[in-house]
């Protein structure tokens, strides 16, 4: 008994979507985490709440809100369509849904890492002549790398497993928008589909465990480098 073609398709799409979602979210998540950790500005509480909203809203609601915003008849969706970008019922929409659902987890981990960096080190870098952006890239970023990695793995795992918002926003079209969780759910709806479901459950578990192990390994290396061992 081996996974059928649809299962492999779903795995490929899920990996593809999760990778894109994570890569696109990393810079934005670092920036938002930095804003929340280091800056005081008007509307900070609102930004914080907005970032965390997908964590507390039912995923179906998030998916529905996305549909309202980016659906083909919605103004935003129409504008993007005019630019040749389609989100609803398209794999790019799955990327957006995965990004939004994983975003709070990424920001949380990165914010903690930034708060743990002594601002005095950044001040010191400035007294040595480093402009602000260089202070970030040469001091802050290397020091928060373990946190960035941890956040990235969390975001990736969330993106791989995201179901509710995705199926609501982009539906469950095999080969186009059917991610692994959607495929597992679909298989369980068909009599006799359980075997394929089990195969896909194994796939999902392997990816998840692999991601965690990889991040542990990387985090350990980074930590060792910072500790100077």
């Amino acid at each position, binding site marked *: 008994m081996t996974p059928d073609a649809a299962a492999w398709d779903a795995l490929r799409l899920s990996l593809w979507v999760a990778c894109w979602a994570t890569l696109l979210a990393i810079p934005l998540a670092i920036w938002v985490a930095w804003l929340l950790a280091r800056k005081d500005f008007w509307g900070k509480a609102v930004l914080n709440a907005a970032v965390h909203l997908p964590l507390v809203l039912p995923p179906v609601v998030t998916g529905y809100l996305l549909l309202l915003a980016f659906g083909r008849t919605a103004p935003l969706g129409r504008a993007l369509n005019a630019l040749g970008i389609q989100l609803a019922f398209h794999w790019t929409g799955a990327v957006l849904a995965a990004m939004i659902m994983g975003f709070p987890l990424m920001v949380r981990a990165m914010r903690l890492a930034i708060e743990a960096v002594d601002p*005095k*080190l950044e001040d010191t870098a400035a*007294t040595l002549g480093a402009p*602000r952006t260089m202070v970030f890239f040469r001091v802050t970023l*290397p020091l928060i790398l373990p946190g960035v990695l941890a956040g990235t793995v969390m975001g990736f795992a969330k993106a791989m497993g995201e179901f509710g918002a995705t199926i609501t926003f982009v539906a469950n079209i095999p080969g186009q928008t059917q991610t692994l969780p959607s495929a597992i759910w679909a298989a369980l709806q068909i009599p006799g589909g359980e075997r394929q479901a089990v195969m896909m459950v194994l796939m999902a578990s392997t990816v998840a465990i692999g991601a965690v192990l990889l991040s542990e390994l990387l985090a350990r290396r980074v930590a060792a480098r910072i500790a100077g061992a």
Partner: protein
Amino acid sequence: MSLSLTLSHRFADFALDISLEAGPGITALFGRSGAGKSTIINAVGGLLHPNSGRISVDGDLLLDTDRGIFVRPHKRRLGTVFQDARLFPHLSVSQNLMFGARYAPRGSSGPALKDVVALLGLKDLLDRAPATLSGGQKQRVALGRALLSHPRMLLMDEPLASLDGPRKQEILPFLERLRDGPLGLPILYVSHAVDEIARLADTLVLIQNGKVQAQGPLFDVMSDPAAVPLLGVREAGAVIEADVLAHGDDGISTLRISAGTLELPGVHAEMGARVRLRVLAQDVILSLTRPEGLSSVNVLPVEVEAIHPGDGPGAAIALRANEDRLLSRVTARAVTELGLRPGLKCFAILKATTVAPGSIGR
């Protein structure tokens, strides 16, 4: 090279209101903890935006709150060494050293890596990680890192305060070399340790409760009786310069000062070297007649210049010993009984073991 600043800044429980000038050499800011010294360093470095003030280095305006000028720290070119070395933990010693080098303006004069490595004895540390260094080693690297950014001036905020005695002794000679060496970098040096200042400073600024109480050449301020309460009665005392004449086999060295010779133990400078001596006010005894049959041999003819009564039973006496000035702390009762008054000629007895050789150098 000159720094000129006027600052006022209000904290919740404390107000800073000062104005000072720093020329070439080492300008020391002395004050107890909480006197506002670090605030001054941070304002000069641009890490603190004071309520109002004006700071200029060589006529180059760094801050002028009236005109809305605030030069960002990275554009000020003022290398800073903090009490906690603040090395970048993710970089090796050599990477730390070179961190600021790339931001030094093209053609700026300053030491190269090999000069700094030689000056600070960093050769064996270059590949090490900061976490594996001792406190003294970290401070040396921090100092080298600041020098390699080619600053116009060094700011040092209690650079030795977190080090123990031997580690301090490890750093002090480097600072002296920096002061006397070819770099000739002006340094603004914050400290609450009188011994460091006596050894290093050229100019001394005394700060108390956010105000400048005295400023001037080190030798003048240290021998000013009015400075005694600011420095602390146990720490106050004049600093004089002496030439090492000879080292005896018994460990006692002979030194010449303008008013005569002194015999002191524990002088580690080479013959012919000029050293600084710190003569604590409480260790100078006064006698109206030349004393005889004393165990101390260091007796100098002096003239009373001024008498400064203290808050308690003590009084600080300013003395002139030929070209040098000394301070003596006696009781107010002794002032009356001896009839001490300005212009009176008498003798100062310095107990050999209590004269602390401040430094080598000069």
